């Protein structure tokens, strides 16, 4: 009985997040569902409280990073990056793609995949349009790298933040272990996208519609982000949790950019933070009643290469069935028992996997085809073809790279 209730509540929370009903926001369904599970006794109050204690710092970390990225936008960093890409392209589509790769990989690694999807991708579209070149290769590159370039740092993806806390490795060790898998993923994306859009990228010169604006790079914001990164690396050895470094970075950025209080709250996306907490408790409820043991029986134990590959592939499949956030919440407690190597292999799967299906989930895809008119406009076929060409090879080479890194680092 408890099992069925937990699974239904989990399903309802995911459905609400996918359907985006106005009258039933996803955060309210997830939070209400979490309270329902506690009220029905599916999850004890102390279990719920310990889950909140576990997720609290991660959600705070996430809020700080969202505020930091919003500060960068406010300071004009993304417009400046657009101008930088346009100048760096020197009129050649192939070079523009290289610039998009550098900027998107850097933005994703440092400011998280959300910043690339929400803030950078529209800029890339506008930059290509103003250069009168076909925006297709560049927008696809940006969209792909938001996922596949999010392997590097604990701050690159919410899934990484969750895994970072659970795995107990330091910020530096996490990044050192993931550097090689990250580079491997970038290399595969580069080779496949170059080949897939060879025709579009071949034409020699493009001509901008007008002389490019030259917005100043906001060096203060760049400095804050750089110092925050340095802070992440040096804070762990002296016993300060990285969440405080992120909070300090967000604070300095906010003091400089002075958003209105309401804008600051909106930048931290309180609805999303509540959704993550609620979903965490709901998944915990489902995990205690059978979901965890089901996942446990599915996953191999150990950190040899075949086990890591299996973890990455299964995680990618679950991420495509359910979306990567719930996939992480479900799989993470199980792989944590096998050690950091297995946790990082899971991240390869859940981070790269979503490039396979347009909305990161097959169920979502089916649902949105029915509900949302604007999806009529998207070319799901092309997206999936590119996903099929990139995701399986990246899962393979990045996991092998991770295995190598685990032997060395």
């Amino acid at each position, binding site marked *: 009985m408890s099992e069925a209730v937990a699974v239904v509540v989990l399903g309802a929370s*995911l459905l609400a*997040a*996918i359907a*985006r009903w106005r009258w039933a926001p*996803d*955060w309210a369904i*997830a939070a209400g569902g979490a309270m329902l599970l506690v009220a029905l006794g599916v999850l004890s109050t102390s279990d719920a409280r310990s889950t909140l204690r576990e997720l609290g710092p991660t959600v705070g970390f996430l809020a700080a990073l969202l505020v930091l990225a919003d500060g960068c*936008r406010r300071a004009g960093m*993304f417009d400046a990056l657009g101008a930088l890409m346009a100048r760096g392209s020197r009129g050649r589509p192939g070079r523009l793609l290289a610039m998009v790769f550098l900027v998107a990989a850097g933005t994703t690694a440092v400011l998280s*995949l*959300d910043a690339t*999807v*929400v803030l950078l*991708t*529209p800029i*890339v*579209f*506008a930059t290509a*349009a*103003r250069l*009168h*070149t*076909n*925006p*297709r290769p560049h*927008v*696809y590159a*940006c*969209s792909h790298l*938001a996922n596949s370039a999010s392997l590097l740092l604990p701050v690159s993806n919410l899934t990484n933040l969750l895994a970072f806390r659970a795995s107990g490795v330091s910020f530096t060790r996490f990044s050192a272990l993931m550097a090689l898998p990250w580079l491997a993923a970038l290399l595969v994306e580069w080779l496949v996208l170059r080949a897939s859009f*060879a*025709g*579009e990228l*071949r*034409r020699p010169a*493009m*001509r901008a*519609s*007008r002389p490019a604006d030259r917005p100043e790079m906001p060096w203060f914001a760049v400095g804050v982000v750089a110092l925050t990164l340095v802070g992440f690396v040096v804070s762990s050895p002296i016993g300060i949790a990285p969440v405080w470094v992120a909070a300090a970075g967000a604070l300095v950025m906010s003091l400089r950019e002075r958003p209105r209080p309401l804008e600051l709250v*909106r930048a931290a*996306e309180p*609805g*999303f933070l509540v*959704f*993550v907490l609620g*979903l965490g408790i709901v998944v915990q409820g489902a995990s205690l009643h059978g979901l965890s043991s089901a996942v446990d029986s599915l996953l191999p134990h150990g950190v040899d290469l075949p086990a890591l590959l299996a973890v990455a592939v299964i995680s990618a499949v679950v991420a495509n069935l359910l*979306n990567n*956030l719930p996939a992480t919440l479900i799989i993470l407690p199980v792989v944590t028992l096998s050690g950091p190597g297995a946790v990082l292999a899971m991240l390869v799967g859940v981070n790269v996997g979503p490039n396979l299906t*347009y*909305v*990161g*989930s097959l169920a979502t895809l089916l649902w949105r085809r029915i509900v*949302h008119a*604007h*999806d009529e*406009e*998207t*070319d799901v076929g*092309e*997206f999936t073809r590119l996903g099929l060409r990139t995701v399986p090879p990246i899962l393979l080479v990045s996991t092998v790279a991770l295995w190598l890194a685990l032997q060395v680092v």
Partner: protein
Amino acid sequence: MRVVVWIAEDTWEGCVDRARALLAEDAEITLLHVAPSDVEALASHGGARLLGRHPPPPPGPPLRAIAEEEARSLLAAARDRLGRPAETLARRGKIEREVLEACVGADLLVLARDGEPRLEPKSVGPRTRFVLDHAPCQVLLVWPEAPPSLDTIKLPPHLR
């Protein structure tokens, strides 16, 4: 004769030059540009792909407005380069379908190869290939630059 000249981002200059050289003086020319709605959707609805997130739309003009402005500017540049009176037509949607619909009632479609610079099937990209295969009028397929020489052909064994 009513002629549609398909203006595509990376090949339009060569395409316009060939049209000017090859079309009769009395041809009624329409310069057509199609903005791809799927790329715009991928760039602007990206936030909808993040579970549980509801990011506010970024400030500045929406991508639709940017795309429309750049299409107008591209068509204006094409008309200047053509140096002859011509209508311009900016459409938005799935590229292949929009081009084919714009060809209804036309006598001729002028379009440029947009693939590999060699004498081979890949010299025409997949979208252009679709239009080429399904156009409801005569078609003039041009090289946007000087045509490659015969030695760029990779001959199959039986022709060597």
